[in-house]
């Protein structure tokens, strides 16, 4: 820790910060590259056969009248899609026909031609355990107080709004929601938008512009990257969750100023997320806030996955670390994950929100949120805050489920990434063939999982990602764990070389790991 706040770091964390990112075993890495190499060779072979008409081509073709236009897609751009993604395409876009709760009903699909087209047989796979939907607190339900309140609201207000916030689309419900969100987060004022992705891509350009600097984490979500690009500011990337990298960038930026002209930066904005959904890691918020205060930068925290899911009172990552919400300049989050609705919000000081009311792209050009969705958010937020007479049962259930699930997976010998308290659990698969095999084998055992490969993750680090929910009972988790263990043995996924029976080796703990460099 070069810059001398070694002693102060230890006091910033009130409880142990434990995360593990075990290294890829060498043999596995080699075999993975080999696997991709073989797939690429076969890809070229199949392309050759298709070009020379030995094989029937299922791809959609350009119109005859437009054959002499410049081609819309370059052949090599779609190489990966045609030859690798198509083979295992049945693991994604699985249609469901029920509530996306702890158990769901999937529509059965068959493919007569190896995933080029799908047909629905009409059968329904009932009661598939849902380990893929972002339903952390279990509010995705069609009965109960939330659903009833949303129904009443639909009858009274209808579904659409057909106007923007600044024109005539500002309903009394929007104002009610914004006051409630501000109270929930503990900030002065807040503002809600219709889409979580658009909240980032429309508001970051309103806050920064040319002459400003954005420091963004390596693994930030596409919406943050798009928002940063659209703003026109200079963007510099720091290593994932690495505070030394961030500090070095901050110092260099302030000392040397803008590139070439050396004028001082107008402002510096740090973009981080609460929980990173592909890694399962939690941001080192106390250290980020300490750095931000020291170097006078501004902090934009995207709590898409962590709001409602972390913290003793469910107020997100700020609550989890026991910090003051006014230290974070801009708190952004979405209502899709823990509240079972749709949309996003930004919270902060009153000046900030007043400015956004005038200058955000969304308030001027985009339709406002639909009333029943707002009602769902209001009811579920009041539930979490305990104002409806219900207890904080869901939060305890979620954190118990998370701890149990992660512990059992560690014991079984899988490589799991991320922080011990994060409900997002990535399980490493590495090899391309195992991606498809894992998804299909789990579905055969009636468990719906999500698998991710390139380009959402680095090419050799494909993974299966589980989202633990408060709606999962102990039996469901046990059933899922048994199935995972069975499939893990079948596909030889238990790569972990740590001691498997509870006491993990000291190299995996990273209690304030930044100071062991």
């Amino acid at each position, binding site marked *: 820790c070069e810059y001398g706040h070694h002693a102060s770091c230890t006091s910033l964390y009130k409880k142990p910060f434990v995360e593990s990112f075990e290294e890829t075993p060498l043999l596995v890495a080699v075999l993975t590259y080999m696997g991709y190499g073989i797939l690429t060779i076969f890809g070229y072979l199949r392309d050759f056969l298709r070009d020379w008409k030995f094989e029937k081509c299922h791809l*959609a073709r*350009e*119109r005859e009248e437009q054959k002499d*236009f410049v*081609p*819309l*897609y370059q052949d090599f751009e779609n190489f990966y899609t045609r030859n690798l*993604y198509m083979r295992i395409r049945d693991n994604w*876009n699985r*249609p*469901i026909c029920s*509530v*996306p*709760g702890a158990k769901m009903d999937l*529509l059965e699909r068959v493919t007569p031609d190896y995933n080029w087209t799908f047909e629905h047989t009409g059968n329904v796979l009932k009661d598939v355990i849902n380990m*893929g*939907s972002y339903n952390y607190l279990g509010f*995705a339900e069609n009965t109960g107080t*939330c659903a009833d309140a949303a*129904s009443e609201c*639909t*009858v*009274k207000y*209808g*579904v659409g709004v*057909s*106007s*923007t916030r600044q024109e*005539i689309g500002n*309903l009394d419900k929007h104002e009610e929601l914004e006051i409630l969100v501000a109270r929930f987060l503990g900030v002065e004022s807040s503002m809600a938008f219709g*889409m979580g*992705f*658009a909240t980032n891509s*429309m508001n970051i350009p309103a806050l920064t512009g040319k002459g400003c600097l954005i420091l963004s984490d390596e693994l930030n979500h*596409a919406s943050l990257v798009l928002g940063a*690009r659209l703003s026109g500011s200079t963007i510099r990337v720091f290593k994932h969750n690495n505070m030394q990298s961030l500090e070095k960038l901050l*110092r260099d930026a*302030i000392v040397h100023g803008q590139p070439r002209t050396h004028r001082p930066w*107008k402002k510096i904005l740090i973009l981080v997320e609460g929980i990173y959904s592909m890694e399962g890691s939690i941001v080192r918020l106390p250290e980020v806030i300490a750095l931000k205060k020291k170097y*006078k930068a501004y902090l934009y925290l995207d709590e898409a996955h962590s709001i409602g899911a972390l913290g003793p009172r469910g107020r997100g990552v700020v609550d989890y670390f026991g910090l003051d919400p006014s230290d974070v*300049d801009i708190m952004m989050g*979405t*209502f*899709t994950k823990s509240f*079972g609705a*749709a949309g996003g919000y930004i919270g902060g000081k009153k*000046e900030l929100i*007043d*400015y956004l*009311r*005038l200058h955000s*792209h969304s308030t*001027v*050009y*985009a*339709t406002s949120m*639909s009333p*029943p*969705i707002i009602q*769902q958010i209001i009811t579920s937020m009041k539930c979490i805050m305990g104002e409806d007479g219900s207890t904080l049962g869901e939060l305890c259930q979620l954190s118990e489920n998370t701890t149990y699930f992660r512990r059992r997976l560690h014991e079984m010998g899988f490589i799991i990434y991320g922080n011990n308290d994060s409900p997002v659990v990535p399980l490493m698969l590495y090899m391309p063939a195992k991606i498809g095999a894992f998804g299909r084998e789990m579905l055969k055992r009636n468990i719906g999982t999500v698998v991710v490969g390139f380009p959402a993750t680095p090419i050799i680090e494909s993974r299966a990602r589980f989202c633990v929910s408060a709606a999962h009972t102990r039996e469901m988790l046990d059933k899922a764990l048994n199935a995972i263990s069975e499939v893990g043995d079948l596909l030889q996924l238990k790569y972990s070389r740590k001691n498997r029976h509870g006491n993990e080796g000291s190299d995996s703990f990273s209690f304030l790991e930044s100071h062991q460099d």
Partner: protein
Amino acid sequence: MKHAHAQSRDSVKMAAGQQWVLVEMVQAFYEAPAYHLILEGILILWIIRLLFSKTYKLQERSDLTEKEKEELIEEWQPEPLVPPVSKDHPSLNYDVVTGPPSHKIIVNGKECINFASFNFLGLLDSERVKLKALLSLKKYGVGTCGPRGFYGTFDVHLELEERLAKFMRTEEAIIYSYGFATIASAIPAYSKRGDIIFVDEAACFSIQKGLQASRSFVKHFKHNDMEDLERLLKEQEIEDQKNPRKARVIRRFIVVEGLYINTADICPLPDLVKLKYKYKVRIFLEESMSFGVLGEHGRGVTEHFGVNIDDIDLISANMENALASIGGFCCGRSFVIDHQRLSGQGYCFSASLPPMLASAAIEALNIMEEDPGIFRVLQDKCKHVHKALQGTPGLKVVGEPLAPALHLQLENSTGSRTNDLKLLRAIVDYSMDRQIALTLARYLEKEERFLPPPSIRVVVTVEQTQEEIERAAQCIREAAVKILK
């Protein structure tokens, strides 16, 4: 002599060409002359020094000492995060609507007739649509809790996509969960750095954001001016001839709106199609205002002009105007649309549309298909409103007779935009006091490329009666006379 002896030994070894046995190597080492060893020793030490010395960065301005750096860090003051906003900024306090935004809307406590929401077919109040949305809510809950790829695809989404494709008579359709994000995600999915896009000056803000995200070359042509567009296309052709190899890989697109939201007129689609085949450019058509409005069956500007829908590469529209739901869709041939399922950012990285909103849209489509007479009624009302507003003293009507959303601009501007806006706002307030709800057309003044002049938006819906239209026109006339004298 010794040196020569060593040399000949080496050459013997080279001639033999084979393995250097370790013992022989050590022997050679002992027998080498002293200066030879010293020279080699110095070389080795030099290599070690180079390997371990610090890398030399040419741009390193590290003439600054640690103390100076600390001082710079102390001194630097950033700007405030947001510039201060005055409390009486005219747009800061929104008009509050209590209750549903239906035909009789309650704005700021006053009940008015709604001439401001884009509720063209009156479906915001439809009981059938609300019922279907309720049924969907009871089956699926509210949210989808995931993007389309990860258990966020519901059977209602698939049904809506099929229905939209069938209605528009195209092969495939794709749904987005936010109207603004539809065209803003579609354009960057096809057009990348180095490609060329010709776009109309009056294009709406979401198209401008899509263009910015795509990083392509953007060339603007004057609004609805086909000669200007042809001039730009000819210039591009001349450029292409200079470098034919590059020209074969650069994609070209024309982006236009069917019915422009900023100027309320229709684009000349048959001329555009002719230019498309002459210069080999693809057309992207944005139909948010014309879907469900123009054409005999409401299929938009392609039906209005009788153009073959396969001639348009991509049609994009939002479902928030005529369909009175939330979200947007793109439709076209499978060859074009399927690409967005993996590269449309707003599709892949965002949660899907809540199923109750999709059901509402399906029911709205049902209503549109059952009763095609409704479009004729809307078109007649538009013509009626256009005629009734003519001759208002001090205000001019901007827009075609068929447009459902007209603009009323000041005939003589005061010279400053703020004053113009104040006058128009006074007219809007006067009308609201007399139970006619109007609104100012809103823009982000600093961000728009070609900022339209300030105006009042007047929207026509099928629910407005003859008498209400007359009353509204009368009210606006009185307001204009009183305020703009």
